[in-house]
């Protein structure tokens, strides 16, 4: 049960964090200038967007959940099951970022889910 909770937090908070950061990046705009000073200005501009801070907070939560899960299960189990974030990412991108997900991408996500199920079934 605890493993489910940690896995859910890793996938949900990790994906949620990435979606928030992605939204923040879209607010900030595309990077055209890759000089160090311009990149530093870009980072400061990104830090003024509240979505960025939501994203960082959620990714921190996901990281500590990953640590907790690694204290219980083998790394060869934990890392592959976190691939479930591809499915969460596809749903999140569709609902939150209004991205269009192609049928081919859904097929890939479905195959990832089958793989995660197989890895989950291999649990001690």
């Amino acid at each position, binding site marked *: 049960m605890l493993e489910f909770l940690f896995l859910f937090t890793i996938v949900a908070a990790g994906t949620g964090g990435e979606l928030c950061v992605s939204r923040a990046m879209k607010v900030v705009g595309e990077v055209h200038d890759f000089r160090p000073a311009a990149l530093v200005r870009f980072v400061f501009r990104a830090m003024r967007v509240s979505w960025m801070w939501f994203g960082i907070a959620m990714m921190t939560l996901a990281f500590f959940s990953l640590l907790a899960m690694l204290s219980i299960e083998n790394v060869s189990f934990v890392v592959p099951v976190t691939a479930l974030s591809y499915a969460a990412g596809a749903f999140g991108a569709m609902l939150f970022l209004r991205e269009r997900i192609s049928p081919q991408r859904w097929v890939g996500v479905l195959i990832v889910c089958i*793989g995660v199920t197989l*890895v989950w079934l291999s649990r001690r």
Partner: protein
Amino acid sequence: MKAVLAFFTPGRGTAPFESPARMDLTAGSTFDAYRKGLNRNRMKDSPGLHLKTYVLILLIVLFAPLGNVLLSKGMKGIGSAKNWVPGDIFHILAGIVTSGYIWLGIACLLAFFVAYMLVLTWADYSYVQPASSFSYAVVALLGYFLLGESVPPLRWIGILVICAGVFIVGHTHPRTTEKA
């Protein structure tokens, strides 16, 4: 198998320096300006650039799993989360912060992140993502050889299926929304 080899062969259909964006974009589409920009910015196909890409992808598929293995080693030393009680939270956090393995793991994950960001500055995401899916297999190998974990056949099959899924996800169009 041929298709897999072709994917990783430089200078072919979905080689790292040819944007897959062009595959789905037709003349007169709203992406015309974006496409023109991509064509203008497309990298020259040089052996040095390919070598650099392969080296960085190798670093990606090594550093991410190695980081996770080190985190796992560090966390196993702290004790199972199943036995954690709320009163021990500071003790556990102190254990995490003072663990050398955890810091090495974080350093490896940072190295992975830098390599990932660097390679994405010239190679396509749709090339890098499937290539980096090998890290799922590498993490199982490292877990088996470095940590002595038992990896049952069903888990290997599951990992290979995940790699195949990520491979397909990575071969889809990298941009589905219009530019703002």
